C-alpha cells in the first residue's frame, strides 16, 4: 500500500508556465519533506513543513501543508529549465525515525 500518493507522475511544460504537484495520504504525518533529485545525484532537501496549514516559500517555489497534515502541495511559478528533476515528497510519523516516500513527480521544463 502506497501511503503517499503523488500526482502527476510526469509533467512536461514550457518555460514560464506555472505548475502544482500534489502529495496526498489518508494518514496523518507529523511533518512532510519535499526533495528534488537530478539525474545521477541524491535527493536534495527543499523544505520541511511541520504545522497544519503552514505555507513556506523558497524563491519561486511555494509549499503548503494541509490543515489536517495529511496532504501537501508544491507550486512552482514561472518554471525554468533548471527546475527540471524528480520531485519527491516524504512523510514522517510521530515516534518513528523513518520516512515514507511518494512515487515522485518527474518534471521537465523545456526552453
Amino acid at each position: 500500500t502506497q501511503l503517499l500518493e503523488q500526482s502527476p507522475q510526469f509533467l512536461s511544460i514550457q518555460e514560464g508556465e506555472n505548475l502544482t504537484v500534489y502529495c496526498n495520504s489518508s494518514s496523518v504525518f507529523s511533518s512532510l519533506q519535499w526533495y528534488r533529485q537530478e539525474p545521477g545525484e541524491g535527493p536534495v532537501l527543499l523544505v520541511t513543513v511541520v504545522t497544519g496549514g503552514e505555507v513556506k516559500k523558497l524563491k519561486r517555489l511555494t509549499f503548503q501543508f494541509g490543515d489536517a497534515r495529511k496532504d501537501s502541495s508544491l507550486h512552482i511559478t514561472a518554471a525554468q529549465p533548471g527546475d527540471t528533476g524528480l520531485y519527491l515528497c516524504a512523510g514522517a510519523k510521530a515516534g518513528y525515525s523513518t520516512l515514507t516516500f511518494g512515487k515522485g513527480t518527474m518534471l521537465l521544463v523545456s526552453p
Partner: protein
Amino acid sequence: SAVISQKPSRDICQRGTSLTIQCQVDSQVTMMFWYRQQPGQSLTLIATANQGSEATYESGFVIDKFPISRPNLTFSTLTVSNMSPEDSSIYLCSVAREPDTQYFGPGTRLTVL
C-alpha cells in the same frame, strides 16, 4: 545540513558477486539509513544502520542479502550480496540530524550483468 560521500559512485558487477558500498559523513550523526532506488522509481528504505547494534531491516530486506556495518557515528557500509540483475539500482545512504529531516548522499549506481 550534512556533507555525505559514497564510494563507489558507480560499478558494473557480475552476477553472483558482492559489492560493498561505503558512506562517510562529515560529522557524527545518530541515525543513518540505506535506501534503494530502482530505475525510474522512488526510494525504498532498506534498513536503519544502528551504531553498536544490528541494523533494523524493513519488510522484504534481509541481513543475509544486505549486511550492514556501522562501526562509528560517521561511517557505514552496505553490502549487496550474491547479486543478480534485479539488484541493479541506485543505492543511497542518508543521515538525520534534525528530527524528521534526512540528508542524502550522491548515491551509488549499480549495474549487475
